[in-house]
């Protein structure tokens, strides 16, 4: 069948950043997880006593909690837990300018194709290499506006009160097993503070990547957006290919105060041996808006459900999610919206593509508490299946306790229609081009919300998959 010939080329599995640079960490904690390791991390970071206590308590919770039995298959991860380095620090001090960054690390960024976008357009960059921020600079005008964009460690050191007031208030360690793990061993990530009324157009960006083999990465990001402020944050990650399993478990906490507006963009393209288990959550106050844009292309298994807790009257949450599952990949993604105040509104749009033996699952929650009068939520999920062996699931949870709420959920599953391809081919397109166009059209509603360079990259990826499918 010609259909299959075309589809055979749609292969994102060939990992495009498959390279390794020499690994020279400055400090490496021992393998595996224990109270000793946690104490070591905390001591190494010269943390205040409360943080050490917090970490130890989180470790206790982590040890107590059973492995989740839902979602993806975590058995491979359980076996390798003892082989993981829970902390790794590549350099002693924080770099302030690009010139100070070692050539080896620059090479890595070079290969990732980051520098163009990063060096010239964006000045405020927290680039995470291995477990810690190695490169960090902030545009002068931002500093003048009072914006803080630091590594999470510096956030704790330099702004202890602000930090302590918000840290772990959005995602407490009790939340889930992996949030507990992250709370115990977190290292690296960003601390962002946007003062009252400040509006920034240029997005804040952080790139990070996992390098050392079998190294866990437990980045933690805390973002506080004060009243009436507006900003967006972009995070993208790629990791080189390794044969053994790798593990990433981040926690992102965002507080969006009244009338503020914040957008968080992630494009995840981990190598296909990565377990990516992330908790991302925002507390959204009165008349504030939070937008998550979540792209999941890589990893072996991703379990990630960006959430908006709408706690202030008139708050709005929006989640755009796109997932691609190639051979052997499982993208268990989606979003959660919790309406806990009157007149709150939310929207989730999810698009997924499953190819080969890939499996994409939408898992989402829409909860409206009693008293969240006139809450409105709408969820749309569309799944595209490319091959006979591909799989897709949809697991929405809709829990409504408020009678004046209005909630809708719709999902559809389809394959690329022979008619669609025929229509395009009859206008002179090759089958590859036609396929690429249909797939691009399918993800367009999400792609158009992405920052330009990401949208371009996403489209280029899809085109790459179509190339070479002739034959």
């Amino acid at each position, binding site marked *: 069948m010609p259909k299959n010939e075309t589809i055979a080329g749609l292969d994102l599995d060939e990992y495009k950043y498959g390279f390794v640079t020499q690994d020279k960490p400055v400090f490496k904690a021992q393998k595996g997880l224990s109270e000793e390791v946690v104490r070591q991390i905390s001591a190494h970071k010269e943390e205040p006593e409360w943080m050490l206590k917090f970490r130890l308590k989180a470790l206790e919770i982590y040890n107590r909690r*059973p492995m989740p*039995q*839902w979602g993806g298959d975590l058995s491979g991860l359980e076996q390798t837990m003892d082989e993981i380095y829970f902390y790794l620090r590549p350099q002693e001090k924080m770099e302030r300018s690009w010139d100070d960054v070692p050539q080896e690390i620059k090479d890595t960024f070079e290969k990732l194709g980051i520098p163009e976008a990063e060096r010239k357009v964006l000045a405020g960059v927290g680039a995470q290499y291995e477990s810690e921020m190695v490169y960090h600079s902030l545009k002068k005008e931002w500093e003048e506006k009072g914006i803080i964009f630091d590594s999470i460690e510096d956030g704790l050191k330099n702004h202890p009160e602000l930090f302590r007031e918000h840290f772990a208030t959005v995602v407490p360690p009790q939340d889930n097993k992996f949030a507990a793990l992250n709370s115990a061993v977190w290292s690296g990530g960003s601390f962002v503070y946007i003062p009252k009324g400040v509006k920034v157009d240029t997005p804040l960006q952080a790139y990070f990547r996992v390098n050392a083999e079998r190294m866990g990465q437990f980045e933690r990001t805390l973002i506080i957006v004060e009243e009436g402020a507006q900003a967006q944050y972009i995070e993208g990650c790629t990791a080189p290919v390794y044969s053994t399993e790798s593990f990433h478990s981040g926690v992102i906490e965002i507080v969006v105060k009244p009338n503020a507006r914040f957008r968080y963009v992630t494009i995840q393209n981990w190598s296909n041996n990565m377990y990516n288990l992330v908790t991302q959550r925002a507390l959204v106050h009165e008349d504030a808006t939070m937008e998550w844009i979540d792209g999941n292309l890589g990893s072996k298994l991703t379990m990630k459900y960006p959430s908006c807790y709408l706690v202030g009257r008139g708050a709005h949450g929006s989640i755009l999610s796109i997932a691609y599952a190639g051979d052997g990949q499982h993208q268990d993604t989606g979003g959660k919206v919790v309406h806990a105040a009157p007149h709150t509104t939310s929207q989730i749009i999810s698009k997924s593509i499953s190819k080969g033996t890939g499996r994409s699952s939408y898992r989402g929650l829409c909860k*409206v508490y*009693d008293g969240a009068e006139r809450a409105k939520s709408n969820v749309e999920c569309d*799944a595209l*299946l*490319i*091959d*006979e*062996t*591909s*799989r*897709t*699931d*949809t*697991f*929405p*949870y*809709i*829990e*409504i*306790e*408020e*009678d*004046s*709420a*209005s*909630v*809708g*959920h*719709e*999902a*559809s*599953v*389809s*394959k690329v229609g022979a008619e669609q391809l025929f229509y395009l081919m009859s206008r002179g397109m090759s089958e590859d081009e036609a396929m690429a166009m249909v797939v691009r059209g399918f993800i367009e509603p999400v792609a158009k919300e992405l920052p330009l360079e990401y949208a371009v990259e996403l489209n280029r990826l899809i085109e790459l998959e179509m190339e070479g499918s002739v034959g």
Partner: protein
Amino acid sequence: MAVMETTAESVNAAFSAEAVERRATSGAGWLGELRREAWDVYERTPMPTTALEEWRYTEVAQLELERYRLAEPKGESVAVPEEARAVLEGKAASGTVLQVDGDIVEVTLDESLRAKGVVLMPLADAAESHAELVREYLGREVGADFNKFAALNGALWTAGVFLYVPRGVRIEQPIRVARWLTEGGIAVFGRTLIIAEDGASIDYVDEFQSPDFDQPSLSCGAVEVVAKNAAQVHYVALQRWGRGVKHLSMQKTHAGRDADLDSLVVNLGGDLARVDLHAWLDGPGARSDMLGLYFGERGQHFDHNTRQDHKADHANSDLLYKGALYEEARAVFRGIIRVHQGAQQTDAYQTNRNLLLSPNARADSLPNLEIEADDVKCSHGATVGQLDEEELFYLMARGIPRKQAERLVVFGFFGEVLQRLPMPAVVQELSEAIAAKIG
């Protein structure tokens, strides 16, 4: 996950190996064995908890399992209340069955159908007179492995109905079954086995009624429907128990090649109703229309757990469950469309719509898809909302009082389900039953 040890005795001393033995020794030998096996499975199976996905929103404690004694069959001595007979009166039927508590007290069947080989009789009798047939099918769809309560039913059932329709025989009027409870405090285990041979056609209405009780009674039933190639079966379960009754129903339908197997599940009565309906589409070209309708008030709790399992290609299933909830009523809908590998050209749809009409009503909806074939059309939708103010305004502007306007709109909401049911007489009865409930 820790498995909770729950022995039967700790749940209710009346559900016991002795009770199973009483039943096992009074019927066919092979059936006795089946009961003992079911009992073993029941004892081995942990009591479901809300940690299980399928029981997430319904606590087993709500069933108050400890409060019942078993309704033992009384045989000839059973008294049949007039209201029980009234359930069947004046309704066109090709055959009728009347159940009172643990007994099947009366069965009628058109002579002409009997002559064509149609069998309608108590299941326990059929286990002896039609042993081969019953043995082949009983427990095949809803066996002890279905869930803990199906195992309990498999061990303890007494009030069973058996319907067999031979190849090509069409039954014009519905087969009507009335199931009646006379008192609170009892547990009744009913069962249904329907077999439609190739090209046979059946309409079947299972109706559950009782007065209101001060103390709870339990009805725990199992329904197995087999529609062979090109057979047509419409199965309707109309649950109108009085208050106090807890209703558990495990149903499985099996649709063969080109078969039509439609179901309608209506929940209006009782305190708690939990319905598990698995529709299997095993033959190419099979079709299942699955309808559901529920109307809850004053603390009623309805939990629907459905599955659409597509094993064969070119099959079609379409589910529509609609419910309206007043006062502290609560509804749960959990449905899965599962398209197995190779079930290409599947069309499967699933829709759940809820109207919340009081501030304390609650609806939870989990419409799930699991798709392992690529050339399929599947979609699902779920909504929770309230009456459209504009629709109400339109009616009120024409002089209709608000209360009445609300009723009309709710009725219209259910209309979408009723108009898909190809049984006009039953639709009429249902409309009346709903009207009676809306008040």
